[in-house]
């Protein structure tokens, strides 16, 4: 039962992060939202494994835990390369 509540909470937080990603206003807020979303995905997959009684699928959560920050580094590299950060739409 607790696991179901946990899943529901994680889904709710996902929704909140999604809202932040839509609202912006700056690009940094969106990156933050994507990052929070990634962490919530790790939790979602882990909890779901226990909920369905087959917790041997944690490998998928592991990928997200390991590779979560590649995207952020990519955005950072984009900024450093094109110097467009000042033209943010805030």
């Amino acid at each position, binding site marked *: 039962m607790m696991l179901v509540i946990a899943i529901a909470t994680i889904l709710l937080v996902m929704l909140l992060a999604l809202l932040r990603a839509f609202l912006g206003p700056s690009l940094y807020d969106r990156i933050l939202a994507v990052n929070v979303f990634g962490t919530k995905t790790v939790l979602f997959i882990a909890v779901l494994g226990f909920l369905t009684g087959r917790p041997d699928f944690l490998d998928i959560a592991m990928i997200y835990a390991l590779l979560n920050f590649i995207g952020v580094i990519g955005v*950072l590299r984009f900024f450093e390369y094109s110097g467009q950060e000042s033209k943010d739409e805030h």
Partner: protein
Amino acid sequence: MDILYLLSLLCLSLGCLCNLIAGIGIIRFPDFYSRMHAAGISDVTGAGLILIGLMLQSDWSTTLSKLILILLFTLLTSPTISYTLANTAVKAKYKAKAKDNSKWQKDMEAK
């Protein structure tokens, strides 16, 4: 066994609470830097507590070791992302809007 299960329930519910509070913070906080603070809470405390809660439910197997590894990697990468993001924002001289800030301060003072 029972005490472990109760502990795991406690950890899970605390973790859910942290996540929820952090989620509300991500929406309600007025500027980017304070939202970042909320996201930090959800990434470290929320994720950590839920993962520890799951660890207490699993027996001695590969599942447990995978959970520990996931926790370690999360603890390693999340702060790195927060640091990188904040650093980039500061270097880009991104300023939180002053108007929102003053309103927030007024609210806080009123309380």
